[in-house]
């Protein structure tokens, strides 16, 4: 592979050669700053408050915000009007950030475990004792079992700081974001291999003529900038095609809804690719100029007919023809959404998103209005302040957790492999975990295995804001300042109109909560790591901003955000240069071929539900983020528990009525801990049930979320690992329902074609 793994990590976000680096030209800063509002606390509501610009973290979409402060208390959060993506708007969660600060269940002090792991019984200790204890255990474990016996699970804005500490300790297990292995690994890899950069959903929906979503449920998934672009697209007259086994919120706004059989998306996409090639619907000039491997693609997909796809996918031939013709008629101004959460079936996930990437290229919908686009490169200064180097004398373990997955190193060690190694000691022992900003028991499939691993550890520490169930397993828990109380890093947005902004404290941290920077700096000091030199966050941020002629002070003079000029579109008369091995868009993936993986996507059937079962799928509600916001007073009030979507015909046959309460039982006989209300609707396939994600907290310390609703995650016990990077699947579990103590089979209304084998339940 010419594209080295290190190279990938360094360039993952940015298209390299094609785009010139950005510096702020003189004059940009001359735009008038918004008038500082006079603090007049006598005014009603949020009016007259002091405005502090910052960045949201109620989800990782990270909209620029304004915190409104009266008498030292934050009274409201609004969008930063200078932001080109959200302007003065924030979503339900963004509006509810106040309740994260003032949640009485917050972790207030460093604590030490006094009960069993998982009980959440702790005693208050000092920061000094807590940090000394963590450093002592990290050093002791490393000495006894080697550096890679330490593993970090992280997510969110603070991840970068803690990752440096683990990297500095020499472990190979320092970057293992569940965000990749459980979420966007497959789509990232697919687009990196095709286009040389991580697409990160840069899809120009607002200028598109047709949009295509595969499972993407914008609106229910409230990534605000994207939701705005999608609705702007519709308002500008764009058509919408949605493939989803459920009649999602965007399905309602769609011109064509394709209620596709779960697990068959790649069949439809391959048939479409073949149809486009056979019927000369593709952009020949674009392909010739910019793509590699067209002939191999043509050859590879020629067996996939539309009739075959209609049967495999359980869709109407007329509908799938109409959809692809609709897309072809408007090329290149079509927005084929890349998707984000793509850890669906384990096998075939990367290839599904490769198909989306390839279809996009066939239509030339690349770096044109309405298509996918390249991020504008903005070269921040490189402060080496927080960079910890791995010790030179450390050797990588003989057998790496990444060995079986040729592309795992792009992301880190597969979380499933860390858990396996922790449970079995193979290929080497893992004895210490750090967990920061991620509730792993509600994120990684088979939480029962995760709990088993947690029991086997010598030491586990958690850095959290709330006492989540994952935190309750920690020996030491550190209270982190939340996003409204701290600085983080510089945020550069590379979208259509790029901008630079920073997160900064709107109010002072409550109790003894500390910023991630401070915590990591204190750890580095104790572990004698040669990093975190700069005095404080302000100095670090100024160093980062220096090369684009900015500083924290200058940025704040501009209302906390500076817009830059984007270069999202290509010159149609020039070839584009992309950051792949060949410098071309790779319809045929050389890197995959080198690793004996299919260079052209193929259809691999995903096991169908056993007789009597339906597939469990999940998604988001707009009022919650993952399992993170269920204890938020306001958001809990909006949506305290999810409903289970069940097909109307199926429900009738089972004798289940709207609002009935049932227990869910999966193929491994795991049952939901609580009853769930059934939403009987024609808006879901008969072979599928749908449960919004993240509910059913098992932490008694979360007084509002505890035992509220049913957890999808605790029913996802069977998972399949992705052969490319080792991610773990989430849509490979099957369920029945129990009503009034009686287990009810799910009747099969849509027969499974013989090409799709069924999952077989092993009789014990």
């Amino acid at each position: 592979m010419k594209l080295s793994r290190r190279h990938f990590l360094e360039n993952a976000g940015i298209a390299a050669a094609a785009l010139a680096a950005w510096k702020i030209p003189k004059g940009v800063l001359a735009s008038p700053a918004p008038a500082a509002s006079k603090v007049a606390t006598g005014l009603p509501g949020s009016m007259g408050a002091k405005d502090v610009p910052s960045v949201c973290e109620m989800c990782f979409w990270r909209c620029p915000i304004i915190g409104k402060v009266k008498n030292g208390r934050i009274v409201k959060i609004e969008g930063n009007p200078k932001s080109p993506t959200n302007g003065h708007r924030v979503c339900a969660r963004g509006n509810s950030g106040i309740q994260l600060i003032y949640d009485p269940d917050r972790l207030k002090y460093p604590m030490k475990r006094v009960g069993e792991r998982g009980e959440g019984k702790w005693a208050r200790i000092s920061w000094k004792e807590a940090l000394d204890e963590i450093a002592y255990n990290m050093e002791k474990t490393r000495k006894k079992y080697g550096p890679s016996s330490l593993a970090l699970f992280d997510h969110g804005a603070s991840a970068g700081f803690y990752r440096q500490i683990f990297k500095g300790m020499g472990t190979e297990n320092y970057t293992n974001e569940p965000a990749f292995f459980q979420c966007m690994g497959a789509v990232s890899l697919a687009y990196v291999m095709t286009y040389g950069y991580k697409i990160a959903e840069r899809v120009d929906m607002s200028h598109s003529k047709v949009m295509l979503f595969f499972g993407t449920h914008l609106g229910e998934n409230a990534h605000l900038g994207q939701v705005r672009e999608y609705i702007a697209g519709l308002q500008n007259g764009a058509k919408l095609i949605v493939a989803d086994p459920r009649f999602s919120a965007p399905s309602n706004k769609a011109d064509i809804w394709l209620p596709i059989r779960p697990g068959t998306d790649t069949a439809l996409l391959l048939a479409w690719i073949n149809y486009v090639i056979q019927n000369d619907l593709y952009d020949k000039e674009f392909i010739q100029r910019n793509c590699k491997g067209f002939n191999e693609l043509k050859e590879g997909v020629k067996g996939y007919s539309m009739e075959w796809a209609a049967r495999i996918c359980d869709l109407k031939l007329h509908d799938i023809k109409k959809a692809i013709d609709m897309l072809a008629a408007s090329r290149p101004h079509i927005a084929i959404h890349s998707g984000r959460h793509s850890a669906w079936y384990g096998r075939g996930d990367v290839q599904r998103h490769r198909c989306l990437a390839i279809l996009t290229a066939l239509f030339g919908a690349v770096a044109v209005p309405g298509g996918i686009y390249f991020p504008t490169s903005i070269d921040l200064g490189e402060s080496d302040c927080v960079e910890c180097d791995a010790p030179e004398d450390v050797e990588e373990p003989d057998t790496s957790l990444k060995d079986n997955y040729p592309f795992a190193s792009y992301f880190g060690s597969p979380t499933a492999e860390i858990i396996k190694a922790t449970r079995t000691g193979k290929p080497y022992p893992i004895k210490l975990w750090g967990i920061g900003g991620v509730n792993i028991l509600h994120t990684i499939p088979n939480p029962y295995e995760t709990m088993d691993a947690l029991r086997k550890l010598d030491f586990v520490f958690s850095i959290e804001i709330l006492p989540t169930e994952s935190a309750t397993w920690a020996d030491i828990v550190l209270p982190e300042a939340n996003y409204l109380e701290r600085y983080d890093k510089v945020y550069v947005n590379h979208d259509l109109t790029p901008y630079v902004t920073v997160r900064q404290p709107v109010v002072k941290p409550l109790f003894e909560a500390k910023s991630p920077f401070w915590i990591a700096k204190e750890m580095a000091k104790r572990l004698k790591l040669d990093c975190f030199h700069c005095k404080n966050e302000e100095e670090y941020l100024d160093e980062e901003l220096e090369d684009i002629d900015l500083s924290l002070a200058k940025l704040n003079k501009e209302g906390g955000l500076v817009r830059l000029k984007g270069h999202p579109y290509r010159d149609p008369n020039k070839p584009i240069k992309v950051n792949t091995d060949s410098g071309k868009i790779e319809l045929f993936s050389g890197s995959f071929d080198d690793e004996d993986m299919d260079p052209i996507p193929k259809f691999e059937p995903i096991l169908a539900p056993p007789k009597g079962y339906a597939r469990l799928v999940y998604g988001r509600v707009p009022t919650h983020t993952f399992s993170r916001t269920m204890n938020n007073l306001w958001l809990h009030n909006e949506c305290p528990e999810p409903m289970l979507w069940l097909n109307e015909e199926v429900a009738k046959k089972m004798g289940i009525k709207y609002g009935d309460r049932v227990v869910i039982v999966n193929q491994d006989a795991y049952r939901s801990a609580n009853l769930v209300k059934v939403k009987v609707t024609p808006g879901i396939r008969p072979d599928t049930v749908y449960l919004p994600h993240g509910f059913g907290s098992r932490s008694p310390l979360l007084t509002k979320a505890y035992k509220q609703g049913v957890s999808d995650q605790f029913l996802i016990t069977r998972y399949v690992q992705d052969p490319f990077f080792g991610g773990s699947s989430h849509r490979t579990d099957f369920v029945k329902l129990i009503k009034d103590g009686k287990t009810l089979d799910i009747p099969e209304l849509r027969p499974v074609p013989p090409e799709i084998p069924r999952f077989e339940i092993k009789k014990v």
Partner: protein
Amino acid sequence: MSQYAMVIDLNRCVGCHACALACRAEWNVPVPYHRNWVEDLGPEETSEGLSYTFFPAMCNHCDHPVCVEVCPTEPIEKEFRDPKTGKTIKMAAKATYKNPINGLVLIDKDRCLGCGACVDACPYGARYLDDTLDEPKADKCTFCIERLERGEVPACVKTCPVDARIFGDITDKDSEVHKLVHKKGAKSLTSKEVDIGPNVYYLGKKKDIELLFRKCAPHKRTWESVKAPSRRDVLVAAVKKIRDKV
């Protein structure tokens, strides 16, 4: 007289609840009450196919507010000033009244007895009795009059991620709301049993409007069965409460 009104465009609305939360934050509306809220509707069959839409709801600032009708307080003369023209209008107003300048239905909290008659009367369930207060008072959406008076838009309008809430004076023929109602066919939520002139309108696909009306249009003439307590009863209750405290 002007009449403030709102049009909610269901073609834009994604059902995200930002409006409900911005309102809660702006006015510190206590849980579990709502001045404005969102209900999910469907997916259900309609005559135009499946519909999965939303009901963003709030006080309709009706032309014939039945909440005002049932308010048991003594009307007293109040002077209202039009900020645009400087003209004043005198009107006898109860604790709940319809502002003759801008058409807003408002509550004079100092005079509200907390009897709850208006809460029971509203066919839209748009009012609540705030039991978190020592002396419960009726509360509801004001279209953010305090913000309007200072040149700001309502909090829900400001936060709406997709600009689905269009606010303005419906008597002004050049206003967006006027156009959306009179030219684009935005509809207020009424039925043949209940039509009290609501000033919140909904725009959307035929199937979504059909589902909205099927599920959410009021049919019960709720105000007709409301027995407001006599003023004397309320006073006696209040005095008893004070005595209990002492």
